[in-house]
Structures are given as C-alpha cells and as structure tokens.
C-alpha cells in the first residue's frame, strides 16, 4: 500500500536541480561553470559572486519555488475537484492577484519600493479568497468553480479597465508585459517574500493528501471515510490563495504549469491524487527552471516572456502524451 513513487521523485528532483544549475550558468555575462561554482560556494571573484548571488541565484530559486507551487496547486485542485481540467486559474486566484499587481502599477505604487507590487498581488489574492470561502460554505466544488470563474472574470474586467484607462501607452505596455510573467531582475528579496507563501501553500496541500485520495470515491464516500470536507476545502482554498497569490506576486501570471504538469507526471505514479502531489511540485519546478533558462538563451533583443515559453515547451509534450496514451487521468 505504501509503495511510494520514490524513484520518480528522485528523478524529477534531479531534473529540477539540473535545470536550475543550467539556469545559473546562463546569462549575458559568460562566466563558465568553474567561476559559477566557485562563486556559489563563496570562493569566487567579486564579479562572478555578484552576478551569481544577486542576479542568477534568485532567479533560479524563484523558478523552482514558483514552479513547485503551481504544479502542486494544480495537482491538488485536480484531485479535489475530481476534474483533470482544473488548474490554479480555475479559482480566479491568479487573476485577482494579477489585478492587485496591476493596480500597484497603474497608480504608480509599484515605483515606491520593489515590495509594493508583490504585496498588492498578495492582497489581491486574499481579497479574491474571501468571496470564495463564503461561496464554499453552502455548496460543494461546483459552487466553488462557478464562484471562482465569476471572481476571475470580474478581476479580468478590472485589469482590462486599467489597460483601458492607462494614463499613457508606456503604463499599458508595462502592465501587459508584467502580466505575461517573468523572473527577470528579481532579487533575494523576492525569494524571501515568496518562500513563506510557498511553504504554507505546499504544506497545506500535502496535509490534505489523504483527503484527496478519499475523494476518489466521491464526496459521500470520502465523508464516510471520516474526511471533514469543509476543512479540506477551506485549507486548500487558503493554500491556493496564499501560495499561488505569492507566486503571481513575484513572477506575474504563468499559466499552463498547473494544468499540464500533473498530467505529465501522472503516468509515472499510481494515480492516487496524493501520489501526484510531490512529483507535480518537482516537475513544475523543473519545467519552470528549464523555461527560464530557455528565455535567456533565445537570441532576441527582448527576453521572451516566461509564461509564453512554458506554454511553448509544455504544450507539445502535453499533446504528445495526450495522443499517445488512451487515458492518462
């Protein structure tokens, strides 16, 4: 019963570390592996140390954290809603967090301090959570999805409104590019900001793993197995709002990871929702670290946006698997 998929966990963890390692070696400055390694262990020259510690390491760590949270949230929501189409966007959290960030950009608060924008995003996510918790009090997951879609739509409308009324074209472009997601120019400050959010999000998701397994038998089946569904729902909502809200705060909206990664790793698990959680986190971390390495190697004037590249990398793999396997979920 406990044949845990340790091998896939190790393989994915190594893959994520490899991608993050590659990401450390990539950048406009050609450093070479030995200089990067030396800088990492604190024995590098000043230039390499500055570049690695202040530019590349935060980026690599953020890719791992954000990817892990998005993958884990996607797997948890698919299990909870018993729907392979679910992703963190389905509850509207990414959008409300984005709206918070857009407001910070629109009113110029973002210029005050590098922390203002992420804080606004987290406030947006939490504000979006309140009506969800209220909707969740009465009915089950269906009410939750519908409420999430409604909240997400309202938040999108708010974002459109901000673009619509943008004081000048530069503000509109700034908002647009931020929305597409990026990890460029982030610092350790962002890592410290998102770390607690991701820790809370991932911790709560893992805590509810057994409840997700029980939901394989439907809500009544799970309740009869002693699962307190109200508690599970509340904890997962909080996990997604804080975790995903935190990631949007530092990276912008990065779609597709939460939807696709659980599908990508599912064939390597025993398909219990709980056995999918850790592989999805590790897979998400690997995918995002890889995508963030790719955006820096493409020889274009402007760095391609991360959200765009995750989709470009992920969609072919996703479709290939969908076509090859009769049923993967």
């Amino acid at each position, binding site marked *: 019963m406990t044949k845990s998929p340790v091998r896939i966990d190790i393989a994915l963890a190594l893959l994520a570390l490899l991608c993050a390692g590659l990401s450390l070696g990539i950048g406009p400055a050609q450093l070479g592996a030995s200089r990067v390694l030396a800088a990492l262990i604190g024995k590098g020259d000043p230039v390499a140390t500055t570049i690695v510690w202040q530019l590349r390491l935060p980026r690599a760590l953020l890719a791992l954290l954000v990817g892990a949270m998005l993958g884990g949230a996607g797997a948890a929501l698919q299990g909870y809603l018993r729907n392979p189409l679910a992703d963190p966007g389905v509850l509207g959290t990414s959008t409300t967090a984005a709206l918070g960030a857009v407001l910070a950009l629109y009113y110029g608060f973002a210029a005050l301090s590098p922390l203002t924008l992420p804080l606004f995003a987290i406030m947006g996510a939490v504000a979006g959570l309140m009506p969800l918790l209220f909707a969740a009090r009465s009915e089950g997951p269906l009410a939750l999805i519908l409420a999430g879609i409604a909240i997400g739509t309202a938040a999108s409308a708010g974002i459109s409104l901000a673009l619509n009324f943008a004081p000048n074209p530069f503000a509109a472009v700034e908002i647009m590019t931020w929305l597409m997601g990026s990890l460029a120019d982030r610092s350790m400050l962002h890592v410290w900001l998102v770390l607690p959010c991701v820790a809370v999000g991932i911790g709560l998701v893992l805590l509810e793993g057994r409840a997700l397994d029980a*939901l394989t038998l439907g809500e009544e089946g799970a309740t009869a197995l002693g699962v307190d569904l109200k508690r599970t729902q509340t904890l997962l909502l909080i996990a997604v709002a804080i975790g995903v809200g935190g990631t949007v705060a530092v990276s912008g909206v990065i779609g597709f990871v939460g939807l696709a990664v659980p599908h990508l790793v599912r064939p390597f698990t025993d398909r*219990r929702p709980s056995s999918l959680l850790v592989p999805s986190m590790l897979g998400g971390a690997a995918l995002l670290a890889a995508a963030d390495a790719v955006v820096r190697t493409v020889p274009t004037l402007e760095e391609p946006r991360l959200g765009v590249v995750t989709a470009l990398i992920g969609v072919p793999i996703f479709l290939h698997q969908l076509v090859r396997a009769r049923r993967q979920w």
Partner: protein
Amino acid sequence: MVRLDNLSVTLGGRQVVAGISTELTGGLIGLVGPNGAGKSSLVRAIAGLVPSEGTILIDGKRALPLRERARRIAYLPQGQAVFWPVTVERLVALGRLPHLAPFERPADTDHAAIERALTRTDLLDLRDRSIDELSGGERARVLLARALAVEAPLLLADEPLAALDPAHQIEVMQLLRAEAARGAAVIAVLHDLTLAARWCDRLLLMDKGQLVADGAPREVLTAERIDAVYGVSAFIGEAEGEPLIVPLPHH
C-alpha cells in the same frame, strides 16, 4: 450496537424520514420499500452524511467525531463512482483511511485487513488491475471490498445489487451474509424482494418515511403489505423451499 430513537431527516423542507425507532444489532438486515420511501436517507443519516433529528446511538455513544464514526460504520454508496483509475489494491486500501492519522504510514494490521478484504471478495488475482479495466460485476466486488477493509462492526450498503446480473447479485448477497456471519451488522437497501426474503435475517419495510414493518422476511412481506406499500399485487410462493415473490400489475 446502533439504536435509533425517533430519527427524522428533513431534506429541502420535506421530511423524508419520519421518527424511526429501532435497534440494529446484528445479522443481515434488508431495508426495503418503494422509491422515495426514505431508505437511502435513513442509511445516510446513520452514516452521518445528512443531518438528522432524534438520536443515533452507536455503541451507546451519540455524536461521535467523524473519524471515530468512520471506524465503526462502513458505508458503501449507491452507484460505482470512482474518479481516478487507481488499481484495485489502492482502492481497497482507502478503507483503512479512518484508521490512519494524516501522515501515519499503514501498519501491519492495515495490510492484513486489506489482504482479508481482497481474499474474501476473491480479488487477489485482480489486485494490480486498474479499476477502469474491470467489468461492472468486478467493480461492484472491488467497492464492496473497499467497504469490508474498514472492518467496521456496522456495514451500510446502499443498493449494492443495482446494475448487477443475477449471478453477481447472488455473489454480493453471499458476501454480505458472510460478513454478517462474522459478527457484523449489515444493512442493505434492496429492491429485489425475492433476494431480500431469501438472504436477509430481518427486513425493515419503509414507506413514506416511516417504518411500516420490521421482522422476519416472511412476516414482513405479505401480499397485503406489498399491495399497500408498492401498489402492486404479488404472487408469493416457494421454490425449492425458498420464498419467491413476483410482483404483478393490478387487474
């Protein structure tokens, strides 16, 4: 073991179970009655899935915490819904969840209970098969094994025979009987009156939310009662010493 005292269930402003009092001590107990009589609601109230008024005493205790209740009452829901294509063994293992704390690993007792459930339902050969590769009859057995794996003193089965062919119906009834013989109280919601009369030790007949008869199958299922409750005539005979009940349209 379970005592109901004036138990009522109100759903959507309508009282679907109206003041039922009885004791469920042991054996295979069939719960029969027409559609909408309140059978499922009664079973779900006992399992703690719908709110109820009145008293449900489980082993003399009222209002047990969820997990504690789940350890004492195994519930086999209507239908065969399984949302992810897990293996037979993984699905049966879910029956041990009430016995495990959040991050606790299953102990030897849990593995033993899973083996027993698989053995009793003759699923050892299918244990590694995916649930979506099985036939309806096999699936029914797997879901029953999942409920057996709880090893609860009370097993509630809501229409365990629905959508099964005669051979699988008999197979499930035999499994429920065996469970009752092992000392559990088994309550099964049934529609086939012949099967109910043939296999159950005791029948509860419900109509319009009330318990209209309670006793040995032959006493409960009389032609007059079947007429009054179901609105059909019934031929009641015997085949090879076993009761045979054939509903007939009114003339």
